[in-house]
């Protein structure tokens, strides 16, 4: 079993309800809270980039588009360990981008921010795909109609395209969140397995299975993981249904 002394001081100071979330013990609750935080930020920060990428892929024609499309989808087919290793090389302490971000005070290496970055990168293609499909399903003649009513391209995008893409954006966000909750390979390669900092639910489960007598705790955490994923999917389904009802006017 993991020892409480190993945890950073700020975790130990938390009120009992938080540290012993659902009576799971401090390690497990820390992993859950961390996972939710990592997934949330991964989803939120990748959203604008995913939206822009989806618009480029759905609407623009340019030389090298298939290559761009391939690069965007790479994290989907690459072994996550490779993604993590590439991130380590780029965003590590000595990586070119890592040094660049360090100048503005953002450090990824061995921090929870790095876990969020790894999650964002691996979930990125899923988010782009969902938004792109939704964009491509839009009746572009509605955009023409908006133009004849005096809306320029930006306003057409904001007033017609974006609201009609909303279900796809939502689906993309949920997919990204769910994928981030499950991120393992890239995270452990990039930011290691630091309790309270980068040990998300999958990493905690892995650690528990490697620890003698950790099986019951691993099982409990696995159950939590299942519940969380299910909850995300059900919520997204609810939102999507409400949204599509609003959009189609029922």
């Amino acid at each position, binding site marked *: 079993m993991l020892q409480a002394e190993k945890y950073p001081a700020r975790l130990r100071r938390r009120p009992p309800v938080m540290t012993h979330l659902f009576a799971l013990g401090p390690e497990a609750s820390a992993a859950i809270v961390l996972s939710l935080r990592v997934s949330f930020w991964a989803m939120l920060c990748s959203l604008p980039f995913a939206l822009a990428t989806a618009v480029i892929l759905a609407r623009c024609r340019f030389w090298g588009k298939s290559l761009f499309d391939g690069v965007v989808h790479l994290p989907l087919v690459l072994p996550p360990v490779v993604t993590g290793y590439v991130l380590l090389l780029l965003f590590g302490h000595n990586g070119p981008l890592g040094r660049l971000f360090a100048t503005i005070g953002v450090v990824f290496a061995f921090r929870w921010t790095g876990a969020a970055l790894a999650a964002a990168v691996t979930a990125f293609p899923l988010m782009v795909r969902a938004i792109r499909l939704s964009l491509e399903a839009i009746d572009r003649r*509605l955009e*023409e109609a908006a*133009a*004849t*009513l005096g809306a320029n391209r930006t306003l057409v995008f904001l007033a017609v395209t974006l609201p009609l893409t909303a279900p796809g954006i939502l689906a993309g966000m949920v997919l990204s969140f769910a994928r981030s909750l499950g991120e393992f390979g890239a995270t452990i390669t990039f930011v290691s397995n630091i309790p309270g900092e980068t040990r998300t639910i999958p990493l905690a489960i892995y650690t528990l299975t490697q620890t003698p007598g950790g099986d019951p705790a691993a099982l409990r955490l696995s159950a939590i993981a299942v519940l969380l994923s299910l909850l995300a999917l059900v919520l997204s389904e609810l939102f999507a249904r409400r949204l599509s009802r609003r959009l*189609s006017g029922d």
Partner: protein
Amino acid sequence: MLEVEFTHILGGFTLDIAFSSGGGVTALFGRSGAGKTSVVHAIAGLLRPRRGRIAINGAVLVDTENRIFVPAHKRRIGYVFQEGRLFPHLTVRQNLLFGSWFAARATNAASRARFDDVTALLGIDHLLARRPRRLSGGEIQRVAIGRALLAAPRLLLMDEPLASLDATRKDEILPYLERLRDHGRIPIVYVSHAATEVARLATTIVLIADGRVQAVGPVAEIMGQAGLYPLAGGFDAGAVLVARIVAHDPRWDLSELEGGFGRLVVGRIDLPVGSQLRVRILARDVIIAGERPASVSSLNVLTATVEKLVAVGAEAVEVELRAGTDRLLARITRRSQQTLGLVPGRRVFALIKAIAVERRSLGHDATTDFAADAQIFEG
């Protein structure tokens, strides 16, 4: 004043269009695939012609020689699409106001008044809170017209706005279009392949076939021409007459009309004496007699002169007749033409059955006053 003159190539199809038109309704008339929609797309700015010039009231929208192309959103041209194209995520009210969000032209109070005017004119006041999916086809088109009007356009384009509707819905919308025309503030370009709509609504007809303008002129003149059939597609040829109601005959439930052609008795029309009407008389409903018939069931016998004969198909001939100051069109067999010895200049009698004048073919003329208009909608 709308001036259109351009050439464009679409696939293997060449468009070579030139016409100009004034106020009222300019109907682009022709069969499907003749290039009518491309013409309105070019006017709206949704199609960039290869070469040409388009101007409205002197303001140049397209001039390829001087590299001018005003984008669609800066043209202030309303467009009513065949399928309505209402925004599904907005309510009817939001759809109607869409144009005014981007056009900060009118003050709030002024635009409010206009909003009420438009919704009343189109009879859509009770639909404002609904979403497009909850509307019938006819309601969708009325909202689409309102949406285009409320963007304060200087020209209104309508591309087959009735094509996707059944006959009942068409009859529901046509009076609103007539009202719009007779209010007369915004010129309308109306695309249609339906002769009945064009006969009822158009002030000017631009006949388009195979990507070219074949004829331009006032509605009565173009519709009264023999031999349009092969150009405009398989429609029922028929002349358009402007007439005034001079008397009602309650005993036989008939009404008497008077116009440049003489007098015409038709089935009773529920409009006051003095109302001005448009009447379309189909060529196949006109019988030609060489001498004044002594006793026939037809109530109308008009004196006319043969002006022109055009062979239509193998067996039929279309005869252009001048009756008074108006033109009539008759379709007869070549054999009858031979028997009667019809040649241009020959004096004949045109027989028109009172019953043949369909209620549906009766439209209001531009000079009809608004009070008379209102009655027919309520009736």
